[in-house]
C-alpha cells in the first residue's frame, strides 16, 4: 500500500513529453526526449577513466566541471564561503578516492558526485550523522554493466531535460529542497513539487533495468 502523492502526474507528464528539450545544453545536441545519445555522458566517461586508469586529466576535467558547482551547492545550503571551499576540496578528493566504488550501472557522474557533496554537507558542515542503506552486491558482467550504464546515462539525461523544462515555480521548489532550504515536513506538505512528474520520468526505465539486474521482479 504505497502512499501516492496526489499531483496530477499524467497531465504534467504529457506536457513534458510534448515539449522539446532544445534548451538543454549538451555537447551532444539532443532535440527530443526520444533521441537518446548512444554514448555515456562525458562526465560519467571521465569518472570511469579515473576509476579504471587513475586518469588525472579526466579528474581535472571533472574538477573544473563539478567543483565550482559543489561549492555553489554548499553555499546555497548554508555554508560560509570558507567552509564551502574546504568542504568542496574534501568532496572532490573523495571523488578520486572513492572512484573504485563508482558503478555507472547505478548512477551517472553528476548523481554520484551529488551524493558525495550532500554527505559532506551533512557530516562535514552540519556535523550530523546520516544512516546509509546496506549496499547491494552487483555481480554483473562487463557487457551487462555497459548496457545498463548507457540506459542509466540516458535516463539521467532525460531527468535533466525534465527538470530544465519544468515551469519556473516548480523547478525552484525542487532546487530549494535540494539546497536544504526546506524541512522534511515542508517537503511533505508542499504540493507544488512535481514529484509525480519526476518520478514517472525516472520510473520509465530505471526500475526495469535495476530489477532485471538484481533478478527480482
Amino acid at each position, binding site marked *: *500500500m504505497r502512499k501516492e502523492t496526489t499531483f496530477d502526474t499524467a497531465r504534467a507528464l504529457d506536457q513534458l513529453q510534448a515539449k522539446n528539450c532544445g534548451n538543454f545544453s549538451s555537447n551532444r545536441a539532443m532535440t527530443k526526449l526520444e533521441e537518446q545519445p548512444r554514448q555515456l555522458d562525458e562526465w560519467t566517461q571521465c569518472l570511469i577513466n579515473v576509476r579504471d586508469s587513475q586518469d588525472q586529466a579526466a579528474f581535472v576535467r571533472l*574538477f573544473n566541471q563539478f567543483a565550482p558547482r559543489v561549492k555553489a551547492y554548499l553555499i546555497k545550503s548554508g555554508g560560509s564561503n570558507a567552509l564551502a571551499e574546504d568542504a568542496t576540496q574534501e568532496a572532490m578528493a573523495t571523488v*578520486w578516492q572513492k572512484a573504485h566504488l563508482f558503478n555507472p550501472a547505478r548512477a551517472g557522474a553528476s548523481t554520484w558526485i551529488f551524493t558525495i557533496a*550532500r554527505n559532506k554537507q551533512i557530516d562535514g558542515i552540519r556535523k550530523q550523522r546520516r544512516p546509509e*542503506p546496506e549496499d547491494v552486491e552487483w555481480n554483473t558482467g562487463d557487457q551487462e554493466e555497459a548496457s545498463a550504464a548507457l540506459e542509466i546515462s540516458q535516463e539521467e539525461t532525460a531527468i535533466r531535460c525534465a527538470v530544465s523544462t519544468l515551469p519556473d515555480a516548480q523547478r525552484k521548489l525542487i532546487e530549494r529542497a535540494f539546497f536544504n532550504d526546506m524541512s522534511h515536513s515542508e517537503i511533505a506538505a508542499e504540493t507544488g513539487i512535481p514529484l509525480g512528474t519526476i518520478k514517472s520520468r525516472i520510473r520509465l526505465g530505471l526500475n526495469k533495468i535495476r530489477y532485471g539486474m538484481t533478478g*527480482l521482479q
Partner: protein
Amino acid sequence: MTDTTIKHHLTDAIMMAYSTGALPEAYSLVVACHVSLCSECRCALEGFDALGGAVLEQTRKSELSEGALSATLDLIANTPAVETPKKYAPSDFPAPLQEYVGGGSDRVQWRKIGGGVKQAILPIEGEANARLLYIPAGMAVPDHSHNGLEMTMVLQGAFSDEVDRFARGDVEFGDEDLSHTPVADVGQDCICLAATDAPLKFKGLIPRMLQPFINI
C-alpha cells in the same frame, strides 16, 4: 537481502527528504533500514538522488579559491585510501541498525516498560528520536495517538492495528490522525524500530502516568 513480501513502503516525500538531506537522523535510520530490505524503494531513492544530480549539474558555478585544484590534489596525496564499505555478519537487523546496536537483536540492552513490552532508546541526535520496541507475541502497546510524525518499521514478527497488518520490512506512518493499538501476532515476539519527533499520546491513565518514567 531483499524482501518482496513488503507491502507498506516509504512515501515519496520521505524519500525525497532523505535524498536532499532534510530528514532528521532518526527518520533517516528507518529509511536506511527499509531500503536495505526493499529494492522497490531503493530504486525510487536512487531516482531522487538522480534528481539531485540534475540540480547540481544545472547550478550556476561559484568561484573557487585560487589554487583550489592543487590544494585538492595535495589532499588526495596526503590522505590514506578510503576503506571499502564495512561488511556485516548475517544478522536479523539491517546493517544501518547494526551500527547503532553493535550487532543484531541479541546485542540490544532492553528496558522493561510494562505489560511485557520492552524498549531500547538509540543514541541519536536531532529533533527526532528512535527506539527499538519489543512486543511479546499476542501483547499490545496501549492505545495511543501521535503529536508529530511516527515511523514504525517491523524488524521481526508482525503486528496488526486498526490500519492493517505490518510484517518484516513494512513501515507504518502515524500522525495526529492515527490513533491505534498495535497488537503483536500470536506466533512470534515482535521487534520494531520506531522514530518520533514528539511524545506519544496515551489514552489510558496508567500509561500516561508512567510516561515520564519510561521516556516514551
